[in-house]
């Protein structure tokens, strides 16, 4: 089973959490917690098991960010979510050299949250205008202020 293989592949990485998810409730088969600097190794392990990067996003928890990576597989149903807590102002390493598809996702996270990805080849805004001076999905962002 893919889930067991994934657990085995992730075991040597010394992650904070690798646990079964409650699929009926959350849609996850495997829930993983990692530190941002572990993400390239996690991504490499996921790729070696034939999983693709479904989505990459962030959540602003006011005191810190959480980076959320979703992985899925074309041949066997096993959705893996990886949560990585990131301190405000800190950088996360890019995984775009492992998954080229992450390039745009990381640009989107940078654009909307201002989170920088170290080692990204082309980290610039993607959805908002190049000269925008705000990151709209930050919780302290107010839309009215940006209109002035």
């Amino acid at each position, binding site marked *: 089973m893919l889930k067991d293989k994934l657990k085995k592949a992730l075991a040597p990485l010394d992650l904070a959490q690798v646990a079964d998810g409650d699929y009926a409730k959350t849609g996850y088969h495997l829930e993983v917690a990692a530190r941002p600097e572990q993400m390239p190794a996690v991504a490499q392990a996921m790729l070696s098991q034939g999983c693709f990067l479904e989505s990459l996003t962030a959540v602003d928890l006011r005191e810190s960010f959480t980076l959320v990576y979703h992985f899925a597989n074309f041949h066997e149903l096993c959705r893996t979510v990886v949560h990585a807590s990131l301190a405000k102002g800190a950088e996360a390493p890019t995984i775009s050299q492992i*998954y080229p598809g992450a390039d745009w996702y990381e640009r989107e996270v940078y654009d909307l949250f201002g989170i920088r990805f170290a080692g990204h080849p082309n980290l610039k805004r993607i959805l908002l205008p190049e000269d925008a001076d705000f990151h709209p999905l930050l919780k302290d962002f107010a839309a009215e202020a940006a209109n002035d």
Partner: protein
Amino acid sequence: MIELGIEEKTYTLNLGPQHPSTHGVLRVLLEMEGEYITKAEPVIGYGHRGHEHMAENRNYHQFLPNMARVDYLHALAYNQGYCMAVEKLLGITVPERAEYLRVILSEFNRISSHLVWIGAYLLDLGAFTPILYCFDDRENLLDLLDRITGSRLTYCFYRFGGVPLDLDDEFIAGARAFIKRLRTRFKDYNNLVTKNVIFINRTKGVGLISQEQCLKYGLTGPMVRGSGIPYDIRKSEPYSAYPAFDFEIPIGDKGDIMDRYLVRLREMEQSLRIIEQALDKLPNGPIMAEKVPKRVKPAEGEVYQAVETARGEFGCYIVSQGDVKPYRIKLRVPSFGNLSILPELAVDTLVADLVAILGSVDVVIPEIDR
């Protein structure tokens, strides 16, 4: 450079943002060497409306109409994805009849989306006639969907817990008539398009995507199925009433544009099969779950729900912190991932081929921009 007697070898060509072949406002910056592309950079975001930001400023019900504005061609699948995510968060079970209705309407919507794609794509390639056929068929569909949902394009029909209105006899009769009609039209499409020698020469062996590229770029939908990977959420991660129906997932073998075209064409036939079975087996019963809270206030937690749209996987990721407003909603849209492979596919092709490749991705720009 010319003064120095040195010929300038490369130049920049700006495709879009207002170019008919970019299907909306997409801009592709091309670096050219003679007739060939050496580098292509899609510039997106012209249609960014901030749907994810809007989600944080309104309650769960108020965000529902936004879903149809994300992907206007397959709005009902987005309705379904969002409703299912919220239902999961609330622990609501949708009655069987409502699931059947959702399947019937979403599949009709999928067909109308593919019809637009075939028509508009052939227009990109310089064939004017097919769009007239496609839009003729689609018009029938829109009338049918309009009858039950009340709108022609930006549908907002599903509700948390089910659907608000039941089908009537006239809709069912119209649906059966349409199934019959479209089946006879496939012959025309094959004669007009599939067997057309110009079309074959433009699409065979062009825009090849390998299975490894599918994996690394996280492609979904007809893009991966054209390359021979049978990944369709309706089968891979069965949801709604889909397990009750007998249908196939069409796949290609080479991964060129022709394969992607054939996948979409054959998918319409499969959608007709699903609808037919759903109409035959339509169970009786309620169309709305009991005890759906008027005030949606889910407990703390997060949820991810994927559905198969005409373009691939739509994933709705909701984080709730126990408030009446979502704390965060991320819309994982298929075209965003699917388009990100364009720079790799475009290298060493002609501009005319790039137009063919771009069209074969089936991008809906507002969906990418959100």
